[in-house]
């Protein structure tokens, strides 16, 4: 119990004093999370809608792969990205400007997108498939273009679509294994809240680890409150 209370006190102290090391870690965490979530949303929502609305040969296989991806062990993703991006790996050896180097923020973003994309796409697909199939016919009959009809279906599925974004966010912010492997937990560069917690715990600094944990939870909570707020307002007619 001692660690708990001293952790809480330290968390408050770190926040009030705006500890520069902590601020750095929070900024990197938010940058990785924000960028990865942006990409997985921009790719995942169209992919999920497409899978939910169209029928094509092999669709079941794609969905089976997607569901597998939803439960993919992050360390395996981390290992995969590590091997791809390392200097001798198939992508890393190309030395192309848009391919991130290992142990950078961008490499962490790549891993995070791979982890969260199946969640966003999978939950979006389920939400879209839950919409009354007659709705599409109805809005087409009212003169909607194909694109407008798809948009109408997504609007009907909006609750589920927002849940998909929240699930993607949750998987990214809580991820530790993959970002540790491809980011390297470098102080002042690729250290994020989760990897810092692992490090401080292994060093025996339980109160600092706990403080970081409390800050992580608070950030997650605040973000979710903001998203729920968005859900309530932005989608009203």
């Amino acid at each position, binding site marked *: 119990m001692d660690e708990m209370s001293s952790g809480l006190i330290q968390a408050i102290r770190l926040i009030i004093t705006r500890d520069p090391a902590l601020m750095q870690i929070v900024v990197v965490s938010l940058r990785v999370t924000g960028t990865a979530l942006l990409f997985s949303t921009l790719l995942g929502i169209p992919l999920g809608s497409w899978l939910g609305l169209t029928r094509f040969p092999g669709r079941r296989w794609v969905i089976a792969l997607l569901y597998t991806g939803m439960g993919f062990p992050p360390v395996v993703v981390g290992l995969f990205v590590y091997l791809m991006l390392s200097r001798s790996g198939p992508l890393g050896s190309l030395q192309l400007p848009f391919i991130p180097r290992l142990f950078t923020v961008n490499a962490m973003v790549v891993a995070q997108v791979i982890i969260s994309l199946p969640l966003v796409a999978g939950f979006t697909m389920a939400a879209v498939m839950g919409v009354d199939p007659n709705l599409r016919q109805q*809005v087409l009959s*009212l003169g909607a273009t194909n694109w407008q009809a798809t948009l109408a279906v997504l609007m009907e599925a909006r609750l589920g679509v927002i849940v998909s974004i929240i699930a993607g966010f949750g998987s990214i912010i809580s991820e530790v294994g993959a970002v540790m492997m491809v980011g390297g937990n470098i102080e002042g560069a690729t250290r994020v809240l989760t990897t810092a917690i692992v490090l401080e715990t292994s060093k025996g600094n339980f109160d600092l680890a706990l403080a970081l944990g409390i800050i992580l939870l608070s950030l997650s909570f605040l973000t979710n409150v903001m998203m729920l707020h968005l859900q309530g307002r932005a989608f009203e007619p």
Partner: protein
Amino acid sequence: MSDVVYRLEQVSKAYGSREVLRVDFLKIQEGEIFGVVGPSGAGKSTLLRLLNFLEAPTSGQLHFRDSYSSNGSRAPLDVRRRVTTVFQRPVLLNTSVYGNVAYGLKIRGDKEVRRKVEATLAQVGLSDLAREQARFLSGGEAQRVALARAMVIEPEVLLLDEPTANLDPYNVSLIENIVTELNRERGTTIVLVTHNVFQAKRLAHRVALLLDGKVMEVAPVQEFFEAPRDPRTAAFVRGEMVY
């Protein structure tokens, strides 16, 4: 009055190997209420989907005025937007009554959404419910919203697919009056599909009997009910079973 809106020649529609509709010839005139009666499974709803260009005929020619003839390709947007359907079961958008009625106008980029929506809601007696969420409406109210969102875009042709099935007499007469008024005052051409012969008798100018995907008889309403040429029509209007 005598302009032809739809002309169907040798039109058929099949799903896989199952042919559900075969119309040798059918004309629908401008400004009429054209009733289509027949037992369920006769192909009535399929006919409406073809007339709304939601599906293309498997073979044959479907002409819409001089604007469009089916040739396997989908009807262009500006043609599709001149026709709309009120389905038997209204699928409303999960938003307010106002939002539902405004939908067709918004996707057209209409400039006078507010005025038109309010006028139409008044017409169907739903002004008080404009701000209500559509999912809380009763069946009759929901169907009136469906009718309002079809009327508000001022279609040339309004297709009605069993619009009053399962509704109470009050809502049935309300909807029938709105439809009659729409036809009389705006000259909207209406195709009314119903299994209720009395409704066809009350509203339609001409009536067709559809049986097993084929048009058995087309006649002016009086003739259809009082002196049908086809014995199957006679049996159907008497309420006897038709195979």
